[in-house]
């Protein structure tokens, strides 16, 4: 069985590399809790490249307005049609932020309408059991949009999540060196394990 490689999507516009430590942290979490074979480092792959088809899960984040190029749109649509899963996290944790407004528009244009993902969706039971998307510290400290986002959004293909969209700002929540997990009483990257396991098993 080939190992899972965590891939970060690099797109032309915006700051795709705003959360550089998330990949290592997710990889650490997958290794820490599962026996899924996983590569020790992530890869960065251009969203316009057919290289994306090698990876079952793509992670995309940023703060700035997102405007996909034509090639990125075509490749992403193909990727989603072929069963790939795109995990998009708004690094602004802001419902009216530039990233949110532009990224959701682009995603809906490429993949279809984003709908509210029910909190009893299989994603939340894919490995750890959650009652919904875990809350982030940014939602609780009032620094963002002063909202706790009760649901994630998704573009569904049948009963499969093709695009998972989050306003929770997991990109900030998980962007720390994995060695620092020892200072946390509860590992806040466990939900990342669910995302990975879901992407691999759906």
């Amino acid at each position, binding site marked *: *069985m080939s190992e899972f490689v965590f891939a970060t999507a690099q797109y032309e516009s915006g*700051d795709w*590399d705003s959360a*550089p*430590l998330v*990949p*290592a942290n997710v*990889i*650490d*979490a997958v*290794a*820490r*809790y*599962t*026996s899924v074979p*996983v590569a*020790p*480092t992530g890869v*960065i792959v251009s969203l316009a490249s057919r290289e994306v088809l090698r990876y079952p899960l793509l992670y995309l984040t940023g*703060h700035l*307005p997102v*405007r996909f190029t034509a090639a990125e749109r075509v490749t992403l649509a193909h990727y989603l*049609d072929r069963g790939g899963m795109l995990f998009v996290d708004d*690094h*602004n944790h*802001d419902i*009216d*932020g*530039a990233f949110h*407004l*532009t990224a959701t*528009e682009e995603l809906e*244009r490429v993949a279809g309408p984003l709908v509210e993902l029910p909190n009893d969706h*299989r994603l939340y*039971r*894919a*490995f*750890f*059991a*959650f*009652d919904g998307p*875990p809350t982030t510290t940014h939602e609780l400290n009032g620094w963002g949009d002063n909202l706790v986002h009760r649901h994630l959004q998704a573009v569904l293909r*049948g009963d*499969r999540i093709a695009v998972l969209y989050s306003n929770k700002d997991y990109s900030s929540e998980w962007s720390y*060196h*994995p060695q620092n997990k020892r200072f946390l*009483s*509860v*590992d806040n990257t*466990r939900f990342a394990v669910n995302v990975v*396991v879901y992407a691999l*098993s*759906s």
Partner: protein
Amino acid sequence: MSDWRRRIGRARAFLAASAALAAVGWAVAAGLAVLELTIAADAVLGLPRGLRVAALPTAVVMGLVTLAARLWAGRRTWSLSAVALFVESVAPELRFRLVTAVDPAYRDTEAASRMERSGPAVNWDGRVRRSGLSRVMRPMAAAALAAVLLAFTPEGLTRRTVEPAPGDLLERRSTGVGGDPLAHIVVTIDPPAYVAGASAVLEDPAQVQALAGSGMTISGNGSPDGVAFRTEASLRDAESADEGWRVRTTMPVGPQLAQLVTSGRSRSLLLLPTADSVPEVLLTVPTRDTVLGEPGGILPLRAILRDDHGLGRAWFEVLVSTGQGESFDVAAYRRGAVTLSGREGEVRAAIDLADLDVGFGAFLHIRAVGRDRNTVTGPGIGVSETRTVRVARRGEYDSLAVDVMPLLPSDSSLLSQRLLIDLAEALVRRRPDLDADVYATEAQRIGRDQVRLRRRVAEILFMRLGDEEGGEHAHGDEEEDDAAPMTPEALLAAAERATEEGMGEALDFHGDETPVVAVNRPLLEAYNAMWDAGRALAVGDPVTALPYMHAALSAIQRARAAERIYLRGRPAAVVVDLPQVRLSGSVPDEAPAGRSAGVPGVREVLAARVRAVVNQLIAGDPEVLDSLLTLRVSALATAPDVALALERAAEAVRAGGDPSAFVREAYARLGGSAAGTRAQELWSVVP
């Protein structure tokens, strides 16, 4: 004109008229006969609509041909000689006097006089009239008989032939009466009101393709009792209508397999909705992204729109964002909203930047938005490409704003190398005035400076090659130590090898390489030349050293002028120590969440993917073959029996055959129960 001539003229006219009338009668009879034969055949056999559509033109053609043939046959009635002969045949007492009189050869002879004299005595007019009428009677009777037959034919049968229309399949009342009410069905599709399109009628369709939200009326003959229309979500009974049954429904948004069911049987109907496309919106002004010098002025906007069924409204959206880092303020505006009609339209607007409170350094993201008139599944909203208009930062153009890169250490080398050249050239100029020992000592002093300079270049060079600073020493090169483990040439060769990887592809970095690798080659040349210059100076020969020193200076200048690439760069890669962390995680008792046992097994996942393939087959997805092959590959390791079934299914698809049985087999082998499931229903109609 003589009397007999007027009479023969009247006879000719009468006979010609009767011949024409008879031709018309035969023509009508022939045309009606064609129609009646078609109606009879349809009543007995149920002719397809194509044949029935051809019946009326065929009848007309048959009538025209008959008319022409009969007129041709009666053309002799226009000949006076022929009419005279006919008159002679009905009035033999004329004894050919009339024929002779009308013959031009005898016009001035006695024959005409004889006719003048005896003609009035013979009454042929009545006999000619009776004979002519008798010739008209038969065709008229035939035409009348055909007309009567047609009049007494059941209206429905006549209409099916005379005015065949989609949906008249059900007018043959024999269908469904006392038999199968699902034997024939007719589906009438009424597009949504916003489309304002005409209805369409389908006879006995296996699938119905229509705009989502279209009204559908499914009709059939026979009793409505027990007839029902079933979809995945609903079940509705048929109602009585026009001596048959009828079900009204709406075209769903997604494809569905519907079934018409009676107590005895069922009939499948695949509902394939076509989507109302969202409007295509093309932002034509501004044509490209741009930068404005001042946060003011009027910005014209223009967009053209197109929709498949009709546009509703259109407007521009302007997103003004200011800020940087993680702090952004965003304001959204809507401008130039217009109501459109038709399938194509245009929207124009002009935005005053002052109204939008646009300041220096702001970004405007502009797009046009179009909405169609879809009131059923929409409205469909289309958006254009987004144009970005940036307002320059305050003072951006007042000075040259350049992010200054720290001076390369090689810049100081440049100054030193030039100084050394000056010193060496001065020494050469002074050579006639100096003793040989002094000359050599001065040259060696310059040589030592050259060595120090070479070391400095080496530090830069080897640091960029991934070595530690002072890499020349790290490779064992002691000053003036020719017995070092590596010769300068070997060292250079190693450095060359390390550098070649980056040459010619300065923008294509690998691993931890940095863009500055591309400037190393000229530094290597400088380093090499400094070695040679240093050797010559060490033996007191600055004349030999100077060309090498100039070469070193030139190389350093090239290194200095080399393209410098400023990239955001990649974050330092963090490599997770997998063996150390593997399965080291624990879930504290007080944690709100625990591990879930819900991870699906391999075969369960495969079964789900087989179900997805079934949906693709039903939808006619052309990529189903790819899916089958991919699924087969996935199953090879864990479920070879399933892989074999999938391979057969793929072969069936390739050959244009029916893969249902093989897909069912694969599903069953994965533990899926096909019998009595929704999947079974779906698979039963896989084409």
